[in-house]
């Protein structure tokens, strides 16, 4: 379903997208449209969002350590919002979120935290056990 979502093709576009919004959370999925993990993720994202930006292949976006097939990150007013998911990596979600409602909850938490000026929010659900077996 990735064709339903706006695409960003290079790092500059990503930066512009992040800069362009004043009071909304930017959710960016880094990855390739053909990647099965990304496909599942896109399905969820599309179903919940009027707007999610995705970035298929920005190889040179070095600072975000994009080693995983699919990475979802949150930004608010040009600030990377970290989220404590219980996995040890607070920077991003690098797996597929299968449940729609869970994703909604996470985005909502991110929004609330970011509005209060927090840089790190705590996810409503702990993903450590679920993701690793």
């Amino acid at each position, binding site marked *: 379903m990735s*064709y*339903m*979502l*706006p*695409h*960003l*093709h*290079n*790092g*500059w*576009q*990503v*930066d*512009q*997208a*992040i*800069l*362009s*919004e004043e*009071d*909304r*959370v930017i*959710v960016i999925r880094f990855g390739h449209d053909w990647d099965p993990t990304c496909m599942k993720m896109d399905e969820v994202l*599309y179903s*919940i*969002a*009027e*707007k*999610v930006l995705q970035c298929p292949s*920005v190889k*040179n*976006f*070095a*600072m*975000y*350590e994009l*080693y995983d097939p699919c990475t979802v990150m949150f930004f608010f007013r*040009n600030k*990377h919002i970290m989220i404590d998911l219980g996995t*040890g*990596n*607070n*920077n991003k979600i690098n797996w597929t979120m299968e449940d729609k409602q869970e994703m*909604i909850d996470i*985005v*909502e*938490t*991110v*929004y*609330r935290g970011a509005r*209060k000026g927090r840089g790190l929010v705590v996810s409503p659900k702990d993903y450590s056990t679920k993701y690793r077996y």
Partner: protein
Amino acid sequence: SFKAASGGTGGAAVGAPAMPLASPLMGGLNKKKKPFLGMSAPLGYVPGLGRGATGFTTRSDIGPARDANDPVDDRHAPPGKRTVGDQMKKNQEDDDEDLNDTNYDEFNGYAGSLFSSGPYEKDDEEADAIYAALDKRMDERRKERRELREKEEIEKYRMERPKIQQQFSDLKRKLAEVTEDEWLSIPEVGDARNKRQRNPRHEKLTPVPDSFFAKHLQTGEKNTSVDPLQGQFGGLATSFPGGLNTPYPGGMTPEAGELDMRKIGQARNTLMDMRLSQVSDSVSGQTVVDPKGYLTDLNSMIPTHGGDISDIKKARLLLKSVRETNPHHPPAWIASARLEEVTGKLQVARNLIMKGTEMCPKSEDVWLEAARLQPGDTAKAVVAQAVRHLPQSVRIYISAAELETDIRAKKRPYLYGLLVSFELEEPEDARIMLSRAVECCPTSVELWLALARLETYENARRVLNKARENIPTDRHIWITAAKLEEANGNTQMVEKIIDRAITSLRANGVEINREQWVQDAEECDKAGSVATCQAVIRAVIGIGIEEEDCKHTWMEDADSCVAHGALECARAIYAHALQVFPSKKSVWLRASYFEKNHGTRESLEALLQRAVAHCPKAEVLWLMGAKSKWLAGDVPAARSILALAFQANPNSEEIWLAAVKLESENNEYERARRLLAKARSSAPTARVFMKSVRLEWVLGNIDAAQELCTEALRHYEDFPKLWMMRGQIEEQSENIDKAREAYNQGVRLWALEKMPYYNLKMQNLILLESVRLEYRAGLKNISNTLMAKALQECPNSGILWAEAVFLEARPQRKTKSVDALKKCEHDPHVLLAVAKLFWSERKVTKAREWFLRTVKIEPDLGDAWAFFCKFELQHGTEEQQREVKKRCENAEPRHGELWCAESKHILNWQKNIAEILVLVASKIKNTF
């Protein structure tokens, strides 16, 4: 609800699709095309860097996610530390001995020196020198060839990529041909932009005026009107701002009419008022909102992190209105204080809760909260206040106990609370409770005493006995027992109890502390238990004092008792002292002065009777007795006392004269005359003669007076007063020559003998008189110089200084008075002069102050009293005038220039002090 991702602005426009296939969701909405979609990045763009983002490191095994040139997180780092690379370099420098594998090289070993931490010794230096020499040699070996090669390489490189400077070198050569003038006439570039472009203006933002909204509402669709009586505040709150933001949402009832912004504001206020009044009037039965529940809501609203400022503000506002609408509602105050406490404004919280305690003094919770919020000592004060307001609150006592740190102190609040609760009970119940309490807590003296207070006499005795068995070391029980006996009329038991107390306390190893016992005695005195007080004093007063200190210590004790107002104590102490020292005149004197000041006339006379019995030689005691009788109007009794005094001291001049005075004051002149004749024969002293002369003189028998005077002068020709009298008598009968002769003779005789002793005082007076003489003659200059000289000769003479102050012109008087005060600050004349100065400046309060000071420092100075009296007559109230007269009578002044002129005048010989005072005061002219 999915508010988060869309930012909560409702159905706002969303960005355009990046691809031709648009999402159906976005289709129908107003599109704002994102301009960057589909565009390519600028050349050499580093993603993230453009918006100042920094990366992060989560997986250190892969290596840092940052490039060496990336900026560090600290945006204001000093130069040289601004990139990640710099920081890493610095880290490496920091740890010199980094023996990591990455630092190891197969050939060279570790990068740094392995031994850099050791001391640098001489052999190290030598080795370094050898290495350096080797390096130098190796360097020189192929130096020429190497340099040549480097040069060639550079040239080759320059050929390929010439420097800009070299590119223009051919053009620059022509610059040599440019003349000086041409060079100077090259035009300036200038700024081609116009003024507006050069000075960009800041963007201006102006709020949209209400008229704008109103116009648009008229032209377009209408919003719902706002009805304040509708009471649908929820609807109001949501519909209206939403309508303004997204201008014309559909589905609303169109309605004609204007939108009045002012009315909207009013409506909101009305709604808030309605809501709050609904909250407050829970009595009227119309409440929809339960105040308690409302406050609980407010409580739950208090944010724990102090994060959301708007929440706090809202809570603060709501609590404020609750406080104002219903100030006697304790939870409102508590909630407000807690809110401030949570937000960290502790002082504000304290102020609030203290105000709360004022508004709701009967609320235990408010007091407890106040005690909790206040620090240490203040908390104790708060609890003390709380106890006053709510003596029955158990929780307050508990919190008071918690505030105390050591165990003994902790007990006190409980005990106090217990006692208070007993007092509040019916006596019968309290008695039962207390008897149980003493069973549980037999070592508490307070409980025993409280129980004894409540019991009947018989039972109280029993209780106290029991208490004594339980606490054999406390004196209070004994003293209470003594008081009990006294109150029930067994005065003879009191003494016995106190004696037994001392012996039993001693037996139990208690040290008898005299001061404490005396204090107890004073308390007994204040409580009205005179017998107990006396018994205690008798028993204790001699304990722990050396023989020779006795008198001294007792007198001091008596004085301190008087100062504390415990008169019975003092009396008891004097009585004991008199028993021990019956023949000491000084003790009798002190005791009688005490009685005179604090006792009744009867007690004084009784005491004096005993006194003269023990010390018949003490004339003062006799005289005091006589005077006391005389003042009471009992002249015959006074006479009989004086007769007894004659028997005891047959030739005492004092007693003779006292008797004469008594008679003459009571107009018994014949008796007085006879007495004086007798005195002249038995005790022919100068004073007796003088008094005789004076009596005749004042009675108008000039001849007799002169006769007596001559006779007296035969005996005492060096007594100056006699000569003076003689002179005055002659003066009065207008024999000036004779008078002068008398004075001359007197001066001659007196000067021969006493001159050397009176030198200084004489000098002062002579100087003063010379100054006055000149002043009277109108020669102010001379009088001033004379005064200056006089002050140089006698710089410590108060009279001179006082005169000098008023010799000055008005503006200089103040400085002069300061000088005078500096030189002789304890001289009554100077103080009087200062008082007069203030008086002349109409500074009434200050003048009064200084007058009081003067009469305090020298109550014998009649002039001061006279001036004071005059002052009060002019400026004081009737009360103050009376006070001055009374004090003057008590002081009985006898000296002073003006005073003596009046008091010694023969016409005023029978006048009392108050009359003389008025007389002198009326003679004073305030011309300063």
